[in-house]
């Protein structure tokens, strides 16, 4: 371990740690633009200057300089404070200062640092430089050269993360600007990540721009339901409508990235028509009446199968399994959905909790479903948002359908129960590599849509008043040991680390 002091506070860090990383372990944020934990060091913005020892003429950059034994680092010395002010003044002199119409406003490190460390006013009385504005880099990314501070996070993202160079720096000195390469618009399926890592409003999402000021929005830290990777995301919404997904850093799952398909999948969770309240044989019914009908249809459980969605949480599935097992149902199946995977994050399994379903004993739909339930599939209980194979419906006496959107099957259902989308749920998901991750509701589905697990609880007449009680029961049953506590600790640690290093919310 290397011993050093930062602002007089002593600490020990692993050999090779930079000053910026060392400071982060103290919870001390050293402002920076070009450095990003997942695309590394470049050292161009000079925002992270610190004083090492007594040398005030040549300041070090904290992102790049490795800690050495006995190092004495000052992050608030007069020389550092002045240099930082100087850097912000430089960054702002040719910046358009168009925060009032800029989508980055409110989540802009340039704005934030200007308030915290900046000079407050400008001594620049000259004409500002002119650069290309509203340049479409692609169908999804818009570029504004005048807002750009040339930190090159975007070009380095492509070079280092994607191994390509669709954009680069053109010209020299004050005329430098980011430009599209000779092959035209960016086609990379991960290109929208450059919007998030851009510390200013130079790169904006053509999908999100001009739609809402971020300070009016609500944000939920959750997990992308798009595939089995389970990329950690922040879901942004306004007045009950999702406006965007953006990746949230988790070094073990998705680093700071997510695929564009997952990012834009937020649209499908803004439901226009949905199931509210229960229906029995096409007539609105109270929930207890509907559940009684389910019990009646299931009977002793023979000839009954459950088809569960792998978009459901582990909690939903545990409650479902508890009820089904108690009701004598032996066939616990899970559905599937797929899309084209890729070489980075996106997996072919287009649902977020297949591993969780498997862990709880749900199995894929067998080739001969009738035989699997001892002759004839009499009643099918569909739990959650899942595509039902036609073979299951062929010779059915009754269908129980619980889903956010009933769809074409709704009319055929003897009992129809409401359901929530993953964006309306609290609980946990297990991704393809076995990480158990908490999700939190970004949207409130409103009246008549209880949490999915409560339906199965009520059917089972189980005594879990809250989700925490259910999770405790799961822990006792050996499913997801230590789940509740682990989730909160991890969440906290990740959000702390992410914001100190990425400079993003």
């Amino acid at each position, binding site marked *: 371990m290397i011993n050093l002091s930062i602002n007089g506070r002593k600490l020990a860090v692993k050999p090779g740690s930079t000053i910026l990383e060392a400071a982060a372990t103290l919870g001390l944020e050293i402002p920076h633009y070009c450095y990003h934990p997942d695309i590394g060091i470049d050292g161009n913005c000079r925002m992270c200057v610190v004083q090492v020892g007594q040398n005030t*003429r040549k300041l070090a950059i904290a992102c*790049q300089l490795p800690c050495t034994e006995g190092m004495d680092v000052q992050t608030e010395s007069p020389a550092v404070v002045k240099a930082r002010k100087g850097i912000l003044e430089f960054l702002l002199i040719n910046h358009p200062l168009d925060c009032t119409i800029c989508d980055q406003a409110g989540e802009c490190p340039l704005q934030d640092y200007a308030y915290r460390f900046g000079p407050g006013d400008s001594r620049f009385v000259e004409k500002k430089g002119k650069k290309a504005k509203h340049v479409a880099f692609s169908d999804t990314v818009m570029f504004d050269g005048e807002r750009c501070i040339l930190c090159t996070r975007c070009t380095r993202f492509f070079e280092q993360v994607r191994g390509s160079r669709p954009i680069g720096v053109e010209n*020299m000195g004050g005329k430098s600007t980011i430009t599209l390469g000779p092959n035209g618009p960016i086609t990379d399926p991960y290109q929208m990540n450059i919007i998030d890592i851009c510390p200013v409003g130079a790169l904006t999402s053509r999908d999100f721009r001009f739609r809402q000021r971020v300070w009016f929005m609500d944000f939920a830290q959750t997990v992308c339901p798009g595939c089995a990777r389970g990329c950690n995301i922040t879901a942004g919404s306004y007045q009950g409508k999702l406006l965007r997904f953006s990746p949230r850093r988790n070094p073990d799952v998705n680093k700071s990235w997510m695929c564009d398909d997952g990012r834009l999948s937020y649209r499908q969770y803004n439901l226009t028509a949905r199931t509210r309240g229960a229906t029995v044989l096409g007539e609105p019914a109270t929930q207890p009446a509907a559940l009684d009908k389910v019990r009646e249809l299931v009977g002793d459980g023979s000839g009954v199968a459950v088809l569960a969605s792998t978009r459901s949480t582990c909690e939903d599935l545990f409650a479902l399994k508890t009820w089904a097992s108690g009701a004598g149902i032996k066939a616990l199946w899970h559905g599937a959905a797929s899309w084209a995977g890729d070489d980075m994050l996106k997996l072919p399994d287009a649902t977020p909790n297949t591993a969780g379903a498997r862990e709880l004993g749900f199995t894929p739909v067998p080739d001969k479903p009738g035989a699997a339930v001892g002759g004839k599939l009499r009643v099918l209980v569909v739990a959650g948002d899942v595509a039902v194979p036609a073979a299951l419906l062929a010779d059915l006496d009754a269908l129980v359908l619980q889903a956010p959107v009933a769809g074409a099957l709704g009319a055929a259902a003897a009992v129809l129960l409401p359901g929530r989308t993953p964006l309306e749920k609290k609980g946990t998901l297990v991704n393809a590599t076995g990480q158990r991750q908490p999700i939190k509701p970004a949207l409130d589905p409103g009246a008549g849509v209880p949490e999915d697990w409560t339906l199965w609880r009520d059917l089972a007449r189980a005594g879990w008043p809250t989700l925490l009680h259910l999770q405790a029961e799961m822990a006792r049953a050996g499913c997801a040991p230590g789940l509740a506590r682990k989730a909160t600790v991890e969440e906290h640690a990740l959000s702390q680390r992410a914001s100190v290093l990425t400079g993003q919310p």
Partner: protein
Amino acid sequence: MIRETKILSARFDKPESWKLDGFRRDGGYETYLSALKTRKPGELVAEVKASGLKGRGGAGFSTGTKWSFIPEGIGKPVYLCVNGDESEPGTFKDRQILERDPHQLLEGVGLTCYAIGAHTAWVYLRCEFAEGLRKVQAAIDEAYAAKLFGKNIAGSGFDLDVHLHLGAGAYICGEETSLLNSIEGLRPYPRNKPPFPAVEGLFGCPTIINNVETIANIPHIVKRGAAWYAGLGHKEDPGARLWCVSGHVKTCGVWEIETGFSLQELIDSPQFCGGIRDGRRLKAVIPGGSSSRVLTADEVRQTTMDVPCMKRVNSSLGSAGIIVLDETADMADVALNLMKFYAHESCGQCTPCREGTPWVVKVLDRIVHGRGRLEDMDLLLDIADNMEGRTVCALADGACWPLVSIVQKFRPEFEAHLARAHRAAVAGVGA
């Protein structure tokens, strides 16, 4: 009495001095070939270190010490890059070597590569040196044909390949780590240090980057010994250098003179500059290429051209480009001219240089064109304070040193611009 010491320039005026035949008739490549057989690489490094030779590109770092930074036994190839991207305003010495005695440079390349254990060398030239690059390429071809380069040179078992690489005309490529990026085919942004190139340079391998004039000195030092070289010129900054004089003198030129001579004498001597043109008076000298602090006429009188004296007068010998300015020079305009160069040549990587150099130009442009304000001079000094020492490379420092020294030493000239502007404005209102 100031006089020339012709070492590097000894053969400059011979007919076809750039050809191999003549070079070998004068004993060329003998030092190289004999060193390959009779001397150990470590001896050569020690010899150069003991000679006191300093880098001639501008920074003036001890050449032998730089060579000794190459780590041993790390299992990577070692490279030599010869920096011939001579672009510092006021500097035109390397060009003389490239055009008039390229084999002298190549012999130095051979000896240096042998000393540092390199088997590949790149001679990096700015593409505007059309004549120099033709001469150097022809010399490389001649050397290969004479089996001075290639495999198992003269049966010594030593292999060496020498490549000529052209820059595309950016000043920043003369910064050693930019030069490496340029050779690697990358945008020539300077690299952060550490790691230093001697540890992690070209293609991630240990690399020594030396200026053309530095390398050209190596055969002479190896041939005549460290003691001989250390005895030349000023004892704390030994050697002879090719001094480039330009500006308002009667005769401009390049002269090879041992360090420690009087700058005033060089300017006045009939054998050298012959005094200031048209009988005018000296106003200022930029002594070491445009990136050095300006000296006033009073300072010039006390200045000898050696590192210790330059430290005393707070300037530097840099690349030995001496720019002489007479009383007709408008120092605000001089500053504007210089700063336009730095703004144009800033690579744009670091915030302070990218944003600061064009800002300085805009302020100076206002002053020179009669739109200056009283606070502008302090503003210039403070912008410079926010640039100097705040960037990856020394380009911003090189812009700040002349700027700050000009503003500080010639402030009345800036104020005269303001007064003139003020009078014009008053007259304009009156009319």
